[in-house]
């Protein structure tokens, strides 16, 4: 099994507890003022308790809170009952993670007696040396080790983004349409991989859940990933065939089609929420792995494998676009639709192929993005990054999307050297705006497209 985790000794797992928020709130509670409380903390390498500030927690459809400098939080609820509380692990400081990554959502029962306390046990993966270097001087921030680690993370993000972005860029190239629903194709991939992995081929239909594998029981994650790509291609094909091809044929303007993609995006996103719920979930396999260390950088076997797969897929896409008849047709249509049509290329067929491949690639990207958390709005959260990537690279160009995605991925991770990691995605907006100001056609784009 290529994904099996390797224990590495430098990784010090330290105990962590959520401790009482303090008597001051508990005793003062009256029954009409109920909440869920807690305090996030971990022990550092020297055994010192550290409270974790700025972590977001939320209860579906109720509200959220961010931990303060004492690591404390409180989310008010309307009344007694069962609640699901989620911790946004993305807001945890670098190097801090849940002891059990699958327990990012916890059930809690609030009684009418007062606030209910809840514990999210945290661990620090920092080795003593790193923790000391980081705390001793700010130059530790800029250490070779940190920069190379961020670069590695950036390349990882960039590779996933590239797979997500190529479809968006090619759909734009061949049809002139900016597909705002592309984020939902990504989420679709995540959710499909999750369902196949957990429930099997048809298990999520409920009444078939008792069937044997692979129908009613979860299938191996690698199989689930392949199936997810197939489903991504299917959704891409169906969306083009049912929604956009008919719109093109009825002469719906491109701007109206763009509004249609927005409507589609929202519709799909809330269909996901409706059936999947707002909870954060994890795949049944590879959800948590210890990192391996090499050249001072840390990477889990899972992520290394996913990156390798991404590289292979992207190279295959590149070869396919330049060497195969179908790929050349795609590029020809992107380049000049009328010319391609007059030279005998079936443009509608090419568009259909682009949607299928774009959907499958987005699904694969979504599957990999889902390693952190499987959630209903995963795609929407990275849509900004994808837009920045395709604009920077040049809308309509597949290779531009690749270049743009790598730059955006690395830029975002490097930005945490100077800004709060919570704000790192803002870097994408800055990249987007500067790209439009300085080179609106993108790095590999042509000028005629933009006016």
């Amino acid at each position, binding site marked *: 099994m290529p994904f099996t985790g390797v224990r590495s000794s430098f990784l010090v797992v330290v105990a962590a507890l959520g401790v009482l928020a303090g008597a001051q709130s508990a005793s003062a509670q009256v029954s009409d003022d109920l909440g869920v409380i807690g305090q996030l903390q971990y022990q550092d390498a020297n055994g010192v308790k550290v409270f974790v*500030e*700025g972590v*977001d927690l939320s209860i*579906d*459809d109720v509200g*959220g*809170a*961010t931990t303060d400098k004492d690591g404390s939080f409180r989310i008010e609820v309307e009344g007694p009952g069962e609640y699901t509380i989620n911790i946004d692990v993305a807001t945890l400081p670098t190097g801090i993670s849940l002891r059990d990554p699958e327990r990012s959502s916890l059930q809690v029962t609030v009684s009418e007696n007062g606030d209910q306390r809840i514990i999210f046990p945290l661990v620090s993966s920092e080795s003593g040396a790193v923790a000391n270097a980081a705390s001793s001087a700010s130059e530790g921030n800029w250490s070779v080790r940190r920069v190379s680690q961020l670069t590695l993370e950036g390349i990882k993000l960039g590779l996933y983004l590239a797979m997500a972005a190529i479809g968006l860029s090619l759909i734009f190239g061949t049809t002139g349409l*900016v597909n*705002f629903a592309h984020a939902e194709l990504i989420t679709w991939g995540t959710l499909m991989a999750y369902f196949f992995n957990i429930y099997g081929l048809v298990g999520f239909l409920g009444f078939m859940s008792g069937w044997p594998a692979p129908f009613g029981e979860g299938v191996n994650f690698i199989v689930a990933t392949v199936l997810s790509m197939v489903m991504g291609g299917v959704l891409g094909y169906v969306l083009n065939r049912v*929604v956009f091809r008919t*719109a093109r044929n009825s*002469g*719906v*303007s*491109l*701007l*109206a*089609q*763009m*509004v*249609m993609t*927005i*409507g*589609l*995006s*929202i*519709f*799909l*996103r*809330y*269909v996901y*929420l*409706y*059936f999947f719920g707002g909870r954060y979930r994890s795949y049944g396999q590879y959800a948590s792995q210890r990192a391996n260390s090499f050249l001072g950088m840390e990477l889990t076997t899972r992520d290394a494998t996913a990156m390798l797969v991404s590289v292979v897929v992207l190279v295959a896409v590149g070869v396919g676009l330049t060497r195969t008849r179908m790929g050349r047709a795609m590029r020809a249509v992107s380049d000049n639709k009328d010319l391609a049509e007059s030279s005998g290329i079936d443009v509608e067929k090419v568009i259909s192929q682009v949607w299928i491949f774009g959907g499958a690639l987005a699904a694969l990207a979504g599957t990999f993005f889902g390693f952190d958390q499987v959630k209903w709005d995963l795609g*929407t959260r990275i*849509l*900004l990054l994808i*837009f*920045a990537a395709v*604009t920077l690279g040049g809308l309509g160009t597949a290779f531009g999307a690749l270049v743009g995605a790598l730059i955006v991925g690395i830029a975002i991770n490097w930005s945490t050297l100077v*800004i*709060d990691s*919570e*704000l790192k*995605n*803002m870097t*994408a*907006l800055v990249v*987007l*705006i500067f790209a*439009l*100001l300085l080179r*609106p056609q993108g790095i590999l784009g042509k000028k005629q*497209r*933009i*006016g």
Partner: protein
Amino acid sequence: MDWGFIIERTFSAMIGPEVMIYALAAVGLNVHFGYTGLMNFGQVGFMAAGAYGVGVTVFWLNWSFWIGLVFVFVYAAVLALLLGIPTLRLRADYLGLVTIAASETIRLLARSRVMKPVTGGVEGIDKFAEPFYNLSPFELGKFYSFGPFKYLGRDVWVLMVGWTLLILVTLMVQQLMRSPWGRTLRAIREDEDAARALGKNAYFFKMQSLMLGGMIGALAGLIQVIQKSSVQADTFNPVITFTIWTILIIGGPGRVWSPIIGSSIYWSLIVFVENTLRQLPAGARDTLRDTVELSDFNIGMLRFMLVGGGLLLLARFRPQGIFGSREEMALDRR
């Protein structure tokens, strides 16, 4: 089922605060999209600019609420410049990309811990609107009846000010669109190159339009946070932008009164559907929950599915609005 209750809720929703706030934001979007053809996919960002215009002034600077009102428009204008300068010379969809990205970034920035001293972070800002409520001629905590409707005094005051502003702004837009300025905007919407060939600085007019519509959106954001008495970053969710789009397309883009009509139709429909589902007999509800997972939470989600599906179908089949004429469509296609 209590039909009387459902109908009363539906009718009071037709003039309620949501209708007024969303209509006002839609008036701004109408200036952008309906009259100028600007694809602003981040109107909620302008609403946030308006909300934080007053919120930040009171919370961070400790200045008066009334000075904050100036910042409502300053922030909106600065945001319009920031979004417009890189995009308005380019094809229409680039504005869409940048506005949707910026509106979400504004929300993330406002809720971040770095900005907490300025924006109040996730908890947001409250207790800033007292100066507004102090002017109320109605007793804030008392109920006032208007025919079948009963409102708290504070709501009556907000509704009165809000609707007055909405009508005034709508009349202002009407006047502008009848002027040569509005004529130029409509020309740019149809064919920017034609307008440029006739000596119109299209970039400049589009920027003016973006600023005006953005400021109107900011005003809507201001009224929203006054009505809620709190500024919360997470209320400025991107889906609001597209609710406003749905409202505008229901009413018909490029018509003066369409934001109000669209907003009334949208909100009464939503309130009707949600209340009807919530009032279903127990047996029917259980059946729906077991078969299609229609839980209380999911009833709330239906609204957004309706927005998305509605926007998709409207843009596909009736981009001129449900009252728009086929003739107008035909003009588009020739």
